[in-house]
């Protein structure tokens, strides 16, 4: 049986929830970054699924841009995290207390 649009949407909603939960629960900057990537992939899946259901390519085109931007963001984000790690020797966000959260 072919999966329907609804199946894809449910899957992407679950992925999005996992990503969101990861951002709140995990206490490691790299894992938080990965959780955000999962959220963005949930977005991509939604765009592609809708695009296919609508028979239009707009969704797929948007996904290309989301992927590119996510890559750029990850590059900048990892650079910032490395810079911070040099100062702190820690990736736990709770230990960054020179500014109050």
């Amino acid at each position: 049986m072919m999966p329907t649009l609804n199946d894809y949407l449910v899957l992407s909603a679950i992925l999005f929830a996992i990503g969101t939960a990861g951002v709140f629960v995990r206490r490691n900057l790299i894992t938080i970054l990965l959780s955000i990537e999962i959220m963005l992939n949930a977005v991509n899946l939604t765009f592609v699924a809708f695009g296919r259901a609508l028979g239009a390519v707009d969704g797929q085109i948007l996904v290309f841009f989301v992927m590119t931007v996510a890559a750029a963001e990850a590059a900048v984000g990892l650079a910032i995290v490395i810079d911070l790690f040099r100062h702190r020797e820690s990736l736990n966000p709770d230990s960054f207390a020179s500014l109050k959260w």
Partner: protein
Amino acid sequence: MPPGISTSDFYYILPELVLTGGALLVLIADVLLPRGSKALAWVTLLAIGATIASLVPFGSTHVEVAHGLLAVDQFALFFKIVFLGAAALTVLMSVRYLEIEGASPGEYYFLILCATLGMMIMAGGIDLLTIFIGLETMAVSFYILAGFIKPNQRSNEAAVKYFLLGAFSLGILLYGMSIMYGLSGTTNLRTMATAFVGQERDPRLVLAVILVVAGLGFKIAAVPFHMWAPDVYEGAPTPVTAFLSVGSKAASFAMLLRIFLEGLPSMSADWRLMFEVLAIVTMTIGNLAALTQTNIKRMLAYSSIAHAGYILIGVVAGTPRGVAAMLIYLLIYAFMQLGAFTIIIIMRRQDVVGDELKDFSGLHIRHPFAAFAMLLFMLSLGGIPPTAGFMGKFWLFGAAIDAGYVRLAVIGVLNSAISLYYYIRLVVFMYLKPQGAGSPVTTSPSLGIALAVAVIGTIFLGVYPRLLFDLAEMSARTLGVAAVTAAIR
């Protein structure tokens, strides 16, 4: 020429092209000029000036470019002028600051221009794609800028926090957008508006609206999505904080108005209610939290959160008058906020960080004009006549009453009264306390120009605001009005 894009499209994005060229020129100039040369700041200002000049032919243009990817109208024009003006002032502020911090100016000015470019695209974008690209061009530039002073731990921390919450909010915003796309079958906001008529009660659309409101709430730093703002504002380099609090906020409001007034007018009952609650909570919590701050940058961060609450009143009103009041307020806010940050940068000397309340003790003896200018900006932020801040609040609250939101206006006025406490406290420190420690307070030529512009703007818009109001109202009226497509020409 690829199909669908015509030569006239390139003509209409001339300002963006000029700014891109200018940004690349700055990078090249950085390599060619001798190290430590101040000429780079002037190259940057030249690029901004050329971009402002290239806006002139579009004074009354009202078209959609590239099949509805971008709108070139007076609404976008107004915002572009605000962004470019704020960028110019930021560059003027940065020259001495970068020297003291020992940061390399080349990439810095390049990133400032990139962020400005992103803002300009955000203000013109009427398609989910362009809005998203503009937003990210701005945000990624700001992530780097926030952590630009690499040896400084606080700057690093600010960058990490801004990046994590920025990326997180982007995920939320995009998820909302993907649902909007799925339900309407289009990414163009104006086509979307017609597609959504009659779908008002679809729970999936309500979910999308909630997600988009939350994602944008992060960008404008509205409570409860404001946690990042005080930390980032305090830790980031001061000129970056200034530009972030003015440019990024104005651009996010432009985007918010485009999405909700152009793309979701049929859902206005829902988002009005959400923004009304957000506005009340944001104003109140922002002001109450600012009361206890002893770091001026942090205090201004909470004050800027409170101002986001005031500006949201205009969105709730949703009328052309409300939107016009928002535009005016954002411009006035740019002058007074950038002015206040210029003073903080003047206070930054080799031996003093200068962003604590006690650093401002007895400033009127050390530097009378700086103290007077700060007094003016504080009164303006608090909304005391005859400064510009008063006129801005007057129109915002007036628009709310016009649209039948008297309660919101009353809460806004009460909040302004609370905010006076912490603005005046700084004035008390400057005028009534004995002198603080550290080397003498001096200005540099570029800081002097920035300060003069901010002071003149704050006074002029306070005593002669009529001119601005007509301009803003004209800009506000172009929002949401269908335009001809450029390709038809």
